[in-house]
Each structure stands twice: as C-alpha cells, then as structure tokens.
C-alpha cells in the first residue's frame, strides 16, 4: 500500500508538472500572439477545446455525466477504504538493550512462520498475522485436522521463544477442517 501510494503521488505530481507546463506554454503563446505551435500542442489544444465544448453542451442529467459521477464515487470510496483501514506496521519491536534497539520485519516473520508450519505439519492454507508494534498479537489460521493444534501451537511458541517474545505475546491459533476435494 505504501508503494501504491507513492506511485499514485508520483503520477499526480507528473500530471501537475505537465499541466503546469502546458498552461504556461499556452498563456505565453497567446500573450505573444504567436500563431505557430508544435503539432502535438495544436492537437492537444483542439482536443481540449472539443472536450470543453462537449461538456458545456451536455446536461447533468445525461447518462454519461451520471455514469462518470458514479465512477468518481466508486473510485473515491475505494481510495478512502484503502487509506482509512488500519495498516499493519512494517517493523515490530523486539527488544532494547545497552547495545541497540532491535526490530523485526513483520511481513518476513509472518511469511517464515507460515512456510514453517506448512513444512513441518500437514496444515494447509496457513496464514499468520502479527499485529501490535510493541505488544504482539499473533493470530495463526490454518486448515487441517484439529488434532494437529498442539503441534502448530508448539511450533508457533518455539518460533516466538527464539525471538524472546514467547511469554509476552498474545497467541491465537485457529484450525479449520480442511475441505476434502
């Protein structure tokens, strides 16, 4: 999501730069009364005038205007939903001592734990989610036999123990019955 936002902002900034350059070029060309302009700029001008003419003759009740407005609403809502939902932290706190403060990449830990459980147990569709920057809340969802719960919990516990966070983390393991094909 952070990369997506950055890309969106880069595209917006580029649009602003292009629009700004175009507005400056047009105003200078008109102010100096220069009739000549490059073909691409002439084409762009004509397209813009055509679009403005069309928009000034349409009515707000026209289905094309209504469809565009509905599309804008959908796009705006989508963007708001993506931005306003809580984002998991990139790194979570591990420890602090005289030497350093120690942090862990959350997504890498989740991925490692998921692949460890798939490798070491018969669980499938494993999903590990670590939340909380300082006080960890680890949730593991997997599909498989309910009998392997103990095995999964043991692996999760030992993974946290290696990081020194087994005792102060809230762990929740959910095992769902695997669907039989």
């Amino acid at each position: 999501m952070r990369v997506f936002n950055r890309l969106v902002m880069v595209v917006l900034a580029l649009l602003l730069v292009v629009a700004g350059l175009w507005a400056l070029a047009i105003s200078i060309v008109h102010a100096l009364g220069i009739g000549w302009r490059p073909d691409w700029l002439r084409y762009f001008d004509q397209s813009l005038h055509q679009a403005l003419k069309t928009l000034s003759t349409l009515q707000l009740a026209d289905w094309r205007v209504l469809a565009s407005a509905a599309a804008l609403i959908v796009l705006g809502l989508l963007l708001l939903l993506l931005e306003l939902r809580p984002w998991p932290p990139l790194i979570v706190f591990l420890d602090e001592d005289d030497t350093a403060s120690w942090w862990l990449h959350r997504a890498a830990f989740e991925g490692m734990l998921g692949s460890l459980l798939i490798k070491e147990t018969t669980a499938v569709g494993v999903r590990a989610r670590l939340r909380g920057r300082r006080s960890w809340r680890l949730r593991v969802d997997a599909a498989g036999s309910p009998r392997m719960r103990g095995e999964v919990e043991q692996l999760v516990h030992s993974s946290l123990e290696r990081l020194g966070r087994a005792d102060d983390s809230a762990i929740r393991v959910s095992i769902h019955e695997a669907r039989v094909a």
Partner: protein
Amino acid sequence: MAVFNRLLATLLGLVLLAVGGTGLALGLGALGSGFTQLAPVPAAIEQLASAPSQNGLIGLALAGLLALLVGLVVLRAELRVPGQPRMADLHYSQSSAESGFGHGRTVVRAGGLEHGIRQSLQSLPAVVRAHAQLAGPSARPNLLIDLEMDAQTQLSTLKSEVGQAIERFRLTSGKQPSTEVQIRLVNARRPVN
C-alpha cells in the same frame, strides 16, 4: 512520507467522492429539478478557453506556475531516498608534541567503517545478508543495521555476536554509536552451526 502520502490519498478520495456525489445528486435532481439542465462545464469557461482575455491568460499562467511548482516539490519529495543523511568522514588530529613527529591528521572514511562492520556482521554464522549505514552527526553516529537472519537462530546468540561487532566498531572509530537493528527472518539454505 508514508503518512503524508496517506493524507494526500485520503484527501484525493474525499475530493473524488465530493465531486462525484455532487454531480450525481444534481444530475438526479435531488437538489431541485432546475439543476439537471445545467452543463458540467459552464459555457463561459468554454468561451474563455476559445478566446482568452488578458486576465484569463494571466490567471492561466499563474495557475500553471503554481501547478508546476507543487508538482516539482511533490515529485522531489517522492523520489528522494528515505532515511537520515549519511555520517561525514571522521577526522582525527594529533599535534606534533603528542606524536613526537610532525603534525598529523587521520581521516577515516565513513564508507570504510560501514564496509568493515558489514563484513564483520556478514561473517556471523546466522546472518545471511547484512547491511550497515552510518548516519547523523559524527560525534554520536547512528548505526542502522539491516540483517537477514536464519529463522532457526536464537536471537540472544545473535545479539551477543552483533554486540561484539559493534564493540569492535567502537574501538576502531572511538565513537559510541546509537544502534538500531532491523531483522528480517529467512529460511536459510546453508547449514547453520
């Protein structure tokens, strides 16, 4: 930067929602049937674009300049590599009275120190890949370490080994760094002792 981008994207979403919502409400006649006959772009704007007045041209130029400036500022901020400014090289001076020889000056390159600590960390058995960067003031540098660590390693073991590497750095440079270590767990393929 992430917070700034998130705010801007939220603002963009709100603007899109407001424009779309207003257009839909007016077009459907929710705010009175008179509005449904209106054009999305007033004819006056279309005429102004076809035959711009002097004031219109000045306005367009100013708006263009503003858009250009804002666009360039945002573009520069987005394309900048995040992080603190790198630490400057370390300079050590010694007077001739202290050394017994002529006046001397030693320069230790920050890049050399980074390379040294990176090599030192890279040689640790549990470390798959290491990256170190020195930032901030040279009197009290910030040492930022990024480690890819084998998932089977005990963190306490790694902490002790990294602590020794940082101590070697302290002895070499004479500086006590403020250190932040970020660990990325990986399932290493090479054998780990």
